[in-house]
């Protein structure tokens, strides 16, 4: 099944605006994000720490609602789902 992963702000520099991932039944949001991240050079280290956790400041949305990182590890994806991943920007 197809799941869309959308990226915003400077994450687009690494991933482009969106990636489509072929998800396996039962895969979680985080697994999909991990797979999308790994599909690009340097993509993984943009989103994940060396120990495999998502960087703390990364915001994950599932079909328009914010999800905590811990929940992203639990929630399974469904056909047509949209996951959005973005960083706050800080400059003035």
């Amino acid at each position, binding site marked *: 099944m197809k799941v869309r992963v959308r990226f915003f702000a400077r994450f687009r520099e690494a991933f482009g605006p969106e990636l489509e991932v072929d998800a396996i039944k039962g895969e979680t949001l985080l697994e999909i994000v991990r797979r999308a991240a790994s599909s690009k050079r340097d993509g993984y280290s943009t989103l994940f720490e060396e120990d495999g956790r998502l960087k*703390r400041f990364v915001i994950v949305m599932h079909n328009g609602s914010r999800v905590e990182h811990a929940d992203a590890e639990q929630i399974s994806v469904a056909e047509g789902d949209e996951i959005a991943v973005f960083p706050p920007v800080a*400059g003035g």
Partner: protein
Amino acid sequence: MYTVRSEEMLSDNELRRYSRQIPLIGEEGQKRLKETSIFIAGAGGLGCPVALYLAAAGVGRLLVADNDMVEESNLNRQILHYPKDIGRKKVCSMGEKLSEMNPCIKIEALDAEIDEKTVASLTAGADGIVDALDNFPTRYLLNGVALKRGIPLFHGAIHGFFGQATTIIPGRSPCLRCIFPHPPPEEMFPAIGAASGFIGLVLATEVLKYILGRGELLAGRLLIWDGWRGSAEEVPVMQNPACESCSGMKERGG
């Protein structure tokens, strides 16, 4: 939510100056602008366009705080500072330009660092706070004082051609920490003036709508601007019941 404090009349000069916007907002609206004090935190890339357009619109009192000096590398985006201002305090350079541009309003240039000790006194008397800063630790201080005083915080930030903006109305919308519980790592961010300008003018528009009590604020919505694509999107943002800054303040009402 917002009360006009006095019945001061607009001068003939003001009626002429604002004659293209009075049909839009009424003399009543123009008086509201005149009677409002807005605190602008930062006289840099975001602060310059915000202050410029709030001054032009006739917001009566602008308090601008910054303790930096103008550097040559600021000039690509901090559009109120000129080469002759290099080495001067940013707030002085800015205050001068704004007063010249609109002598009908009051500008208070606050040459001060915003920290835990100064944030409350600097913002005292302000009806709203504009976050035109470049770092999250200080933004959280402004968030705290806005929540405490029940006044809005207009948040904006940029990175390269990207930007974001949202409006925080204490008690009615998520606060800055609900939306961004963890700041991104500090970095030397790339900046292009057109992105600061875009986000700065979103903030100025939010301030005007808030003062006028019209339109729909970006409360509970985060606007994300991608200048490379020319697209603005919004994502809904929610109050975090476990937020360390605002939980337990919900009942205050906006």
